[in-house]
Structure formats: C-alpha cells, structure tokens
C-alpha cells in the first residue's frame, strides 16, 4: 500500500476551478444555434386527455419544433415499465408533461407551450395513499396488468404498484407469549426535495443519426438506455456525456429531461437545451417519498425482541420508479439493526395522483430509521429499560440473523456505540440551561453499499501519467474525482495527481449502474483496482525485461519500478511505459466489478425483493442534544455527534465533509423541509421562499469519529460513506425532541408549529393509519397463511 494515496487527506483537483467560477456544468453549456425548450405540463392531477392541439403554438414566433406522445412510444420503469415520457391518454399527476416545444428563445418556447390547447376530462384524484387504497378506488393505472414486467416477483394489485414482504420465524406464537410486552407505534414522514443547485438540464444534438446528450445526471447508462426505450430506438444510438454535476442527492438518478431534448434536437436539426426552472424542480423532482409506517413488537421485560411486525406504505406517486426497488430496503432499514427472534414485514409502493417520488440520499433509510428508533424508545419506556442499554444489548453482532435470515459478520454496531460514549465524553460541554426544554438521544442506523456492475479502463501513458476511464460522474462528493484515482494510484505506485480522470462518456467507458447508493468508491473503485492491477502486471512484465529480473522481484512505488533488495536498479514508470509503447504497444488495463452476492437470505423469507441480503452493510451511530423553545416550538440543535462505519477511510477529510453535509441535509428533513400537496394535487412549495433547506444559521459543526475495520469486499475494505450520514438524523432529532417534550413524536418534519402543537396538548392528535388493516395479514397480497406457516420453521 502506497502511503501517499490511501488514508490521505488529498486535496480535490476540481476545487480550484470551482472556486474560480470556471467549471462548466451542463447548465453552463451553450452551442451556436442552440434552441431553448419548454414543456407544457398538465394542470390537473388526474383526467382523460380529450384533445391536444398544437396548431396555434406551431405558428408562434421563433418556434422550431413541437413534439408529443406520438414521438415517444415506449415506457420505462424499475421492475414495471409503467412510465411514458408524455402523458398518454390519461393524466396521472399535476405537472405531467404533455408537449415539448423548442424555440429560438426561452420566452418564445414558454409562450408557445402556453398556447397549446389542452382539453381534459378531470377525474377525482387520489392525493393520498389512504385515497388510493380505499375500497373500490379508481386505478391510477387501469392497464397495470398489461405492463411489461422488468423484474419478476413483486405482488401487485390495483393501486399497489409493488409489494415486498418478509416472514421469518413463528411471529404468531411470539406475539402470543404471556411474558412479553407488546408495543405498537405509528408514524408518518414527509417528502424531501433533493434541491441540487444545478437543476436537471440537458443540451442535446442529433449527429450522424445518433443522439448526443450532454446532461446533468448521476446515471449516464440509465439515461442512455431509458432514452432509447422511451423513443423506441436502439440504445447504441444514444451517447451520454456528463460534465461536472452541480449536486445530485438522487434527484438525477433517473432519466428526466434528456428524451425531450433529444426529440426536439432531431425534429429541429439544431442543438436544444432543456433546463428545468426551480419551480419545475420543486413540483416534479423525484423527491424522497412520503411514508406511513406501523411497527409492532413483542419484547420481554429484560429487553429481548421476540417478534416484530411492520407495515410500510411508500407513496411512489403516479409512477413506480425507484420505490419499486426500494420496497426491498425496508427489510433492512426498518427491521434491521437489531436482533429479532421473529419478524414479518410488508412494504408497499402505492400509486397516487401526485408527482412521482424517487431516490434521495439513503432513500427510505431516514424515514424508516425515524420510525424504528422512536419505536425503540417507546419500547424502552414500556419495559422501563435504559435506552442506551437496550440498544447495546440488542444491536446486530457477529453471527446474528438479519430480518431476511442473512447472517451478519463482525461485531460492528456494539463497539461503535462504545465509541460514541467516548466521543461524547471528549466533546465540548453544552451551554447552560436557559429555560428551554432539553433533550438528548442516541440512535443507530444501517444502510448498504449498492453493489452492482462497473467497468474501468486504465491507460499508462509514456509520460508516466495514467488515464482512468469510467462512467463515473462527479456530483460533488469527490468519490469520482478523488477517491477512485487515489485507489488506482495505489495499484500503480504513482501519485494520485498523476491519474487523469476522464469525464463520463458512454461512448468511451463501459456500463455502470451510476453514482448513487453509496456505491461509487466500492464498485467503480473495485473496477478501477482491477484495471490498475491488469496494467500493473503488463508494466512489470516489461520492466522485468528491462531490469533483467523476475516480475515477482520487482517493487512498484513512488513512480518507480525497482528490484527488491537492490534499490539502485530502478526505472521510472514513465520510462517503462515509454519502452513498452515502443516495443509491445501502449499499456492499458481493463477491469470490471459486479456484486459477489456473498450474503444470502434464508430461502422463503423474502418475497418481491430485488435485494434480499446485503453484501456490504454500513452502520452508523448518531447522537444529538436539542433545546426546544416552549414558546415557539423551535428546535435548536446544540450538539451533534456521529460514529460512522467506513471500512477504511481512503480520504478521511473528504469523509468528514460528507458527514457534515449529510447530517445538515438530514436536519432539514427532520425539522423544516416540508412538502405539502394542495387540493388541486399540486405541490405547494414552489421555490426556496416556502421550501426551506438548512441555511448557515440552522446548523452546528458535527463531531465525527470514523470506525474502521468492519468487513467489506470493497477495494482495500472500503465502504460507501456519502449516503449514510443523512440516514439516522430524523431519528436522532425526533428521539431528542420526544425526550425534551415528553410527547410521542410520530411525524416528521418537526416544524415549529408541529412541535408547538405537541406541547399544547398534542393538537395534531395521533397519526391516522386506519386505512391499514388492523391485522397484519390484511395488508398482504397472496397466500400469506402458507408463507407464515412455512416461516415458522426458519
């Protein structure tokens, strides 16, 4: 291991241009003759399209192209291909695209879009999951049975887009034991907008029969493939290139504006820019979903959890999208962390007539962990056990079973809890009492690395530099621009700054799932490692010839190849690469990665899961101290502490930056980022006037401790570090507010009016989940009795 590249606080190579204002993001891209585009969107939440007439719009000044549903025959999706590019026949959410217009100026495009005549016969819209699940509710997708199924196994019915479930052990017997206390808790969590400062934006051109999409995305290959699916063309006819991305947070983990730009570029013969306004971002981003959760546990007086059952509803909005996949994750986020004697969980993605939701940083982790940890504190209150002691007793340890029967490796959470005690004791003292209500909390959380395919190519150039070619994009976390070159440099014994990172281009690099799911450093890093080792082998073969030594006697470090035991016998990497170029051809290595599928669930435990066991789990322990103003309901965070499982800290300073940023984003979700939906089905928060991400005066400096050494097959034992910092934050805040106020906290965000309501005799009252069947079985599709009976034996 080269000491220069690993565990090193190396500076980011992209910082200087970003500080000079020179970095060109997709939103800064401009081409000669470029047209500007606007979308005509639906202004009702549900209805039948009677007529769309573009005649008048076509004749408006500056208009060069108008495209609509007939140009985009395909449907895409995750698990189920339910999502067309334009509303087709039916409108399913307020803001759904109907027609796209390109014109010489943005104003002209917007004027023409507004001039499109749209006649709709409105339906009563399902604006909540309770509406959508009501008996005889109209189906948001009457044609759901005919949709192409992209992944088998999920139960579907009516407005239930996808159902995943878990059964392990004899839950009925455990709940019936006479030595247990049964605790039931119900929760709701709101939506959260990613609010990346760069919106979703694409500049498209149509060249030599192919679409070239310069876009702001986390998933170049998904954009390539889904654009092709929607347009009904070959994926090879789409090239996606991605400059620096001005923030992602999951909001760019799905195809979005690119197909509109592509169609308009082809129709007009000109480059076309589609850039969503902040209002469009607020109204139509694939926000973190709102969720409704019931969780019920049977616990002995000495704190053993003998049974747990849960019902989770995830509002996917009008189309299933990533929520279909994410029903898999609640087995781990809601029924993970703790040893459970038996468990049954059902997780449903529910169609509503609202803007589609999607993945945001750690996805359902924050809402599920909020529910789990508040429930955990309610259990502690019910059995009279110390909250820390309960967690220390019950967290997953080496050899323990997860909810799906996966056997976890290593004691991780327990020692991390102990480290938190040390971090707390070493921290600064809290400010003196000032009349506000004080509360504190310690919570645990788990997430996982989204392992999945990646590819990398490494060229060793004759000047000693290395070119790294992947489909990784740099969204701001530094994983692509900094962590991966650090890992590759380590394989070749060169300096990290000598590794040039090629910007993502689907014509240049092989397939990759995308930058998200905490997978970049692991998956792209592993592919980069493999490519680096391949190049290293070739380099050493050539060097062995030059030095007249055996390859295994050579050492590659500090930019030199030397003979072990004879340090005078050495050549620069540049000299070897130059020699190789001349004699055997340029040195290039290729590498790839895919999930090893090492972790396995007990067969039969999980149904409808795309991931039923976690190859590389990630854990975190969070703690906070809050002060609640009883006059205003305002919650001030006084101190915040994090112990995070990182595997190995490749760049500790960069990880600390992710922790600070992730925690602050979580504070926004926990406290004041609120999304509400009006009676017309439109999201009420249209910009940063009413939607409030944290500002500088809302935040504290987070104290963090990086926990190394937990098992991971990532490169050098690395794990993803950017997603999990947000995951336990709403749990930490909600538990601390409950501690401070003595009230049951069942909802996030904890806005000042909501907290004040809690203090004033719980004005909002308990959460209403009466649309869930009171018996768990009533919330599950398929032959639930047979599954429960089978599960009693494992």
């Amino acid at each position: 291991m080269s000491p220069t590249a690993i565990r090193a606080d190396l500076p980011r190579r992209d910082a200087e241009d970003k500080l000079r204002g020179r970095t060109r993001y997709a939103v800064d891209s401009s081409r000669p003759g470029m047209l500007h585009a606007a979308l005509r969107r639906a202004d009702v939440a549900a209805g039948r399209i009677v007529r769309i007439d573009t005649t008048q719009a076509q004749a408006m000044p500056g208009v060069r192209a108008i495209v609509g549903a007939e140009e985009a025959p395909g449907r895409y999706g995750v698990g189920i291909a339910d999502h067309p590019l334009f509303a087709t026949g039916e409108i399913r959410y307020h803001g759904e695209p109907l027609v796209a217009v390109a014109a010489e100026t943005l104003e002209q495009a917007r004027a023409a879009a507004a001039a499109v005549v749209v006649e709709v016969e409105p339906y009563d819209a399902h604006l909540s999951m309770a509406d959508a699940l009501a008996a005889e509710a109209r189906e948001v997708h009457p044609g759901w049975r005919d949709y192409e199924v992209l992944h088998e196994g999920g139960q579907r019915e009516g407005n239930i887009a996808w159902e995943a479930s878990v059964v392990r052990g004899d839950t009925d017997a455990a709940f019936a034991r006479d030595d247990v206390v049964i605790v039931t808790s119900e929760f709701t969590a709101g939506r959260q907008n990613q609010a990346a400062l760069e919106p979703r934006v694409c500049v498209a051109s149509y060249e030599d029969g192919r679409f070239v999409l310069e876009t702001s995305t986390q998933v170049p290959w998904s954009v390539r493939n889904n654009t092709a699916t929607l347009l009904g063309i070959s994926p090879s006819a789409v090239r996606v290139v991605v400059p620096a991305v001005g923030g992602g947070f999951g909001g760019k983990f799905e195809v979005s504006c690119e197909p509109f730009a592509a169609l308009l570029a082809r129709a007009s013969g000109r480059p076309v820019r589609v850039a969503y306004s902040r209002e469009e971002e607020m109204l139509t981003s694939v926000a973190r979903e709102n969720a409704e959760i019931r969780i019920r546990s049977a616990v002995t007086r000495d704190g053993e959890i003998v049974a747990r059952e849960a019902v989770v509803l995830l509002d996917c909005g009008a189309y299933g999208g990533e929520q279909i996949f994410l029903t898999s994750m609640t087995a781990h986020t809601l029924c993970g962390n703790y040893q459970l004697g038996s468990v049954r969980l059902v997780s449903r993605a529910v169609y509503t007539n609202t803007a589609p939701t999607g993945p945001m940083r750690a996805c359902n982790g924050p809402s599920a962990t909020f529910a789990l940890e508040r429930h955990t504190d309610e259990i502690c209150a019910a059995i009279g056990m110390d909250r820390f002691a309960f967690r220390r007793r019950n967290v997953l340890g080496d050899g323990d079973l997860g909810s799906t029967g996966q056997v976890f490796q290593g004691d991780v959470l327990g020692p991390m809890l102990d480290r938190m005690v040390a971090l707390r004791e070493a921290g600064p003292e809290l400010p003196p009492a000032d009349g506000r209500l004080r509360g504190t909390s310690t919570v645990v959380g788990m997430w996982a690395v989204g392992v999945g395919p990646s590819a990398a190519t490494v060229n060793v150039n004759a000047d000693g530099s290395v070119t790294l070619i992947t489909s990784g994009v740099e969204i701001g976390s530094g994983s692509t621009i900094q962590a991966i070159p650090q890992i590759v440099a380590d394989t070749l014994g060169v300096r990290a700054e000598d590794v040039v990172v090629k910007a993502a281009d689907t014509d240049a690099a092989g397939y990759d799932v995308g930058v998200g799911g905490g997978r970049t450093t692991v998956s792209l890093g592993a592919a980069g490692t493999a490519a680096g080792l391949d190049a290293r082998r070739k380099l050493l073969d050539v060097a062995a010839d030059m030095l007249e030594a055996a390859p295994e006697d050579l050492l590659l470090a500090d930019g030199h190849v030397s003979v072990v035991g004879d340090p005078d016998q050495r050549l620069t990497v540049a000299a070897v690469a130059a020699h190789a170029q001349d004699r055997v051809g340029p040195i290039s290595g290729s590498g790839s990665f895919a999930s090893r599928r090492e972790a396995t669930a007990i067969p039969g435990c999980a149904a409808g899961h795309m991931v039923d066991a976690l190859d590389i789990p990630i854990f975190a322990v969070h703690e906070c101290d809050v002060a609640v103003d009883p006059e205003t309901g305002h919650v001030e965070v006084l101190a915040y502490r994090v112990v995070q499982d990182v595997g190995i800290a490749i760049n500790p300073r960069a990880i600390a930056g992710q922790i600070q940023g992730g925690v602050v984003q979580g504070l926004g979700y926990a406290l004041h980022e609120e999304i509400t939906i009006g009676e017309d089905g439109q999201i009420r928060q249209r910009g940063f006037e009413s939607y409030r991400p944290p500002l500088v005066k809302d935040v504290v400096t987070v104290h963090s401790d990086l926990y190394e050494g937990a098992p991971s097959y990532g490169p050098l034992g690395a794990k993803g570090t950017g997603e999990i910092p947000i995951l336990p934050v709403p749990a930490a805040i909600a538990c601390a507010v409950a501690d401070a106020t003595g009230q049951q906290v069942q909802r996030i965000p904890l806005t000042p009016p909501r907290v004040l309501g809690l203090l004033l005799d719980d004005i909002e009252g308990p959460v209403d989940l009466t649309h869930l069947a009171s018996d768990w079985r009533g919330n599950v599709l398929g032959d639930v009795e047979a599954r429960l009976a089978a599960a009693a034996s494992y």
Partner: protein
Amino acid sequence: MTIELTVNGETRTVTAAPLTPLAEVLREELYLTGTKQACGEGFCGSCTVLLDDAAAPSCLTPVGMAAGKAVRTIESLAPGMSELSPLQQAMKDADAVQCGMCFPGILMGLTALLARQPEPTEDDVRTALSGHLCRCTGYARIVDAALSVCVPAERGV
C-alpha cells in the same frame, strides 16, 4: 436596446431589454458563467455579484439598473492565471468545496463583507452567509475558512 456596463473593470456593451436579469446577461451574453442562477428568485444567493462593492442578487437586478455601476463577478477574484484570492485559497485549503455551485455567490458575498469589515466576528460571517444556500457542505468549513482569512490573529498557523 444597447446598454453599457462596466464588468470586472472593462466596459462592455450588451444588447438586452433593460428589465432582463443581470445574471442572464452575464451568463448568456458575456459567457461569465461563473455566476449561477440556481433559483432565479433571490433566495439562494448563487447569483451574487458586487455592484459598486455591495453584494447584490444579479437574478433580481435588471440589467438596466446595473448601467453606470461597477459590476464584479467571481471571474474577477483571480483573473487569468493569477493566484487565488486569500478567501479562495482558504476554501481550497479547508477542502470546503463539493459540487461547487454555491461558491461563486458565497465568495462574492464574503468578499463584500471583508471589504467593509476586515475583521468580522463569526456571527458577522454567518449573517453575511445567511442568504446563501449550500446543499452539499453543511457550511461548517465555509465559515471556518472565511474566519481563517478574516482574523489573522486567530489563524493559528
């Protein structure tokens, strides 16, 4: 119509309706894309420029009102090949940058603060930053880096 502006010390003539947002003219006509326009409504601070040394949201400033004033953008802080300004260098040294979209505005806002108040307190820095939205960093390093430039006595070399 034709409007004469002084941008980063140079006289520039642009053709735009006088109510066009200054940010749009800077970005689309003068290709000074360092100035961002993340919300277009004056709430995020990413479009902050200096107008006669005072920080101003260029998305809400009609270009006609900038005529006759000195406009400074992020590109002026370290023009061409020149070294980073102390503030830029401090941000770089602190590893403060992530996606980078907010930094042009933040740097201009802090530059205005330091010009009028060379030794601000932490509270002054936070107040100056209170109109700037950063979605990535959680602000801590930005505040620390700014203070390291502001108060030489507390830099703790």
